């Protein structure tokens, strides 16, 4: 088990290093004058030179790379071009928002997705099954931002016009300040990320359960007299969960993307919105920092899922 852990850690470190290197390559090896970008279009040649020296851009690429890695290891992500604020401070400020968004959605999509899948499977070919399948199809086809806009329009705006201000967008209240308000502002964003993914999970669960429910051992259980409910939850569901867990690991990677668009749609002050604004302003250190951080987060999440898998299934450790 320890060996497995070490191997996974080594692999994760490798991926993070590769991510950081690609970020470096994008910024420093691409033929665009970063210094000019920062200094502004009207800047004189002198200013540009000063900026260049300050950023260490006059050094050879190799040296820049090494210092880049060195700074990363010290958790130094540089400073914002515009405000000089250290990127790590910016990230620390935005992180709780994105984390709340991500974790809440993940939980929601698991519960709703698997639940809907089970219902659809156990009531095969009923109206409910068809309805769930149809809605799921629409939900996972559309991009997250569209779903967000839809929710905003229907669940906020129409209700608002009718006089009920339930889920206003645009603010974030920390959990520590008021859990109720925290949830209130996050429900629509949670739904907009979760529903799309839940739709995939419901399909996955449904098809996995349908396969399992056809198996002989389920037939045996029924003939032994077990209640349908017991069969569903104790026997069929357990076997169907395996692909769900695998999928979860994969989807953790996509969470970041979902978070980005959702924060933009709902105006939440998280890492995603920060990154998008930074692109518009060409504030490179912020984007770089967030990109590398995202890679670290995704890799860590995958590591945790892999460990969980290995704990459950010893065969995984051997490969």
């Amino acid at each position, binding site marked *: 088990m320890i*060996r497995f852990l070490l*191997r996974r850690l*080594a692999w994760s470190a490798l991926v993070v290093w590769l991510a950081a290197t690609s970020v470096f390559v994008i910024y420093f090896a691409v033929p665009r004058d970063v210094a000019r970008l920062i200094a502004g279009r009207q800047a004189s040649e002198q200013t540009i030179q000063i900026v260049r020296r300050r950023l260490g851009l006059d050094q050879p690429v190799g040296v820049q790379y090494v210092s880049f890695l060195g700074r990363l290891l010290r958790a130094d992500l540089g400073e914002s071009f515009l405000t000089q604020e250290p990127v790590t401070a910016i990230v620390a400020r935005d992180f709780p928002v994105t984390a709340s968004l991500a974790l809440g959605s993940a939980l929601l999509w698991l519960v709703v997705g698997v639940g809907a899948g089970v219902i659809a499977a156990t009531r095969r070919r009923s109206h409910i099954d068809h309805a769930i399948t149809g809605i799921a199809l629409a939900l996972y086809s559309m991009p997250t931002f569209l779903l967000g806009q839809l929710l905003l329009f229907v669940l906020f705006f129409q209700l608002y016009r009718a006089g009920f201000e339930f889920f206003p967008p645009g603010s974030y209240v920390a959990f520590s300040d008021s859990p109720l308000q925290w949830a209130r502002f996050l429900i629509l964003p949670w739904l907009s990320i979760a529903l799309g993914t839940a739709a995939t999970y419901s399909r996955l669960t449904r098809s996995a359960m349908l396969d399992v429910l056809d198996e002989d051992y389920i037939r045996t259980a029924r003939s032994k007299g077990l209640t349908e409910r017991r069969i569903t939850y104790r026997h069929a569901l357990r076997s169907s969960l395996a692909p769900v867990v695998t999928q979860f690991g994969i989807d953790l990677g996509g969470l970041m993307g979902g978070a980005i668009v959702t924060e933009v749609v709902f105006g939440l002050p998280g890492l995603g919105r920060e990154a998008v604004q930074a692109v518009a302003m060409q504030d490179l250190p912020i984007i770089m920092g967030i990109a590398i951080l995202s890679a670290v987060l995704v890799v860590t999440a995958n590591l945790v899922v892999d460990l969980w898998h290995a704990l459950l299934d010893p065969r995984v450790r*051997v*490969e």
Partner: protein
Amino acid sequence: MLVLAHRGERLSAAPKTARPGEPLVSLERVVKEFPVKGGGLVFRSREKVHAVSDVSLEIRRGETLALVGETGCGKSTLARCVMGLHAVTSGKVVFDGTDITRASHAALKPFRRRMQMVFQDPYGSLNPRRRVGSILGDPFDIHGLATGAARLSHVHALMTLVGLNPEHYNRFPGDFSGGQRQRIGIARAIALHPDLVVCDEPVSALDVSIRAQILNLLADLQHELGLTYLFISHDLSVVRHVSNRVAVMYLGRVVEVAPVDDLYAHARHPYTRALLSAMPVADPDGAAAREHVVLSGDPPSPLDPPSGCRFHPRCPRAQARCAAELPPLAPAAGDVAEHVTACHFPLADHELLATTAIGQRA
């Protein structure tokens, strides 16, 4: 049990071409081991599957040599070593005087024309997504021998030769029955008129009623094209009617080789006796009178074969010497040079395996 419909002769007519009886293929001390992959980022091989251990065998031009044994005894692996599909771990494979043991993929290519294989599974040996004409055209395409219309006429000729309707060349394998697919497989094997054809259980997956037809076909082809066969099977009743010589394998080693009549009448090795006794016989009264041998225990794993004679844990005649010393392949007392056995205590003609106690000798 099998009746060859209109053939009284064996599958071993002497070909018109030269050198009948001389070795076409020579295997010298061939060993094939497969490493069992251990885990880890670094490739570590811990254990090995000893598929073939120190086999020396000759296949003579014009003959049909049968290779028999249980599943897992290594006969298919050995066949693939002969064909160059597996690289042997050690030993030599000599084809018609040329050592092809370490030949590269490219160097082997001209030899591919001279030795071919008929596979066991008629449903797996043909690519389901390719048309039969295309599959049969492969040999000509790969070796650059014919294209276009010429190739097509070759394909038609081949199909006729094996008893198929040439107009069906545009069909998919799924449209044919098992027996027909096996004919296609045979056609593919003989397309370039090879010297050697390895038949790996060619009729095992077919209905009994079809087997005779396919065996007849193989006999005819051997006669017309001067083929040499290495015939692999686990079914001794089939083997009896088709071979000149038989080699019996057990757990990676050859334990007995003999001309076919000799083997059936005068089997020397205990394992051979056991196999023969398990052969179904049509006559119920005759069956009751036969020797009935039941081997104890399970066949051991090729990962960790027994020391000395590999059969000793299951052999009713085994003694201390059997575990300690590997018996060489040599003629037993009174046998012709052709009939060799690897046993310290080979059975005499009148001896029965089941009733021989330890220590008693004929």
